[in-house]
């Protein structure tokens, strides 16, 4: 799966995106975040569990308990401030 980052999350992680092989136990968006915190210290530091952020699977905004299904791309970003 490709994980993409935006705005301050992208800046603080110092990466736009990353390719990630997910174990079978990772089933939802929240599971991906938990997995990343486990394997990546920087990620755990920048996005601790209490962080307020939003997520999209293949361009669709989703809740954190949404199953990944066959999505190829997960985007993680702060609450939006357009307009």
């Amino acid at each position: 799966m490709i994980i993409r980052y935006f705005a301050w999350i992208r800046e603080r992680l110092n990466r736009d995106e990353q390719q990630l092989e997910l174990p079978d136990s990772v089933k939802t968006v929240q599971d991906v975040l938990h997995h990343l915190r486990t394997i990546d210290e920087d990620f755990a530091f920048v996005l601790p569990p209490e962080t307020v952020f939003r997520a999209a699977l293949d361009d669709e905004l989703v809740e954190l308990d949404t199953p990944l299904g066959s999505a190829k791309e997960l985007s993680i970003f702060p609450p939006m401030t357009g307009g």
Partner: protein
Amino acid sequence: MMGISVTIQAAIFDAGDLVNQFTRDIPEAGAVATFTGLVRSKPEQPIKALILEHHPTMAQKQIERFAQEAVDKFDLLAIQVVHRFGEMKVGEPIVQVMAASSHRQAAFDGANYVMDWLKTDAPFWKKEVGADGAHWVEARDKDEAAKDKWTK
């Protein structure tokens, strides 16, 4: 004709030219509501520039969705949204929504609806550049509350 047009671009646009072009081909329209969002600077915290980051594919899809919903909900004749990204100066337009309908209320509601949803659910992030450096703008609870009125 139920035209929906969504453009996401870096280039600056002329607010007046856009609305003149928009209204040219809709003879049934009795009303057009136009909202233009601008880069603003506060006296107590002046900014030099605004940088807008976006998620291109998702932004396009989300705004097209809100535009379609507005057309269906308010029976609009046409709607056009132009949203910029990248760096812009104080006073420049960021976004423009134009809604055309037979009568005025639908046009007002259509433009309002799209802006309320766009604020919280279209993937854009503002970064203000001031004298003391750049910082990301925080989302406002008021914006989250504004869209709730459409779901009641």
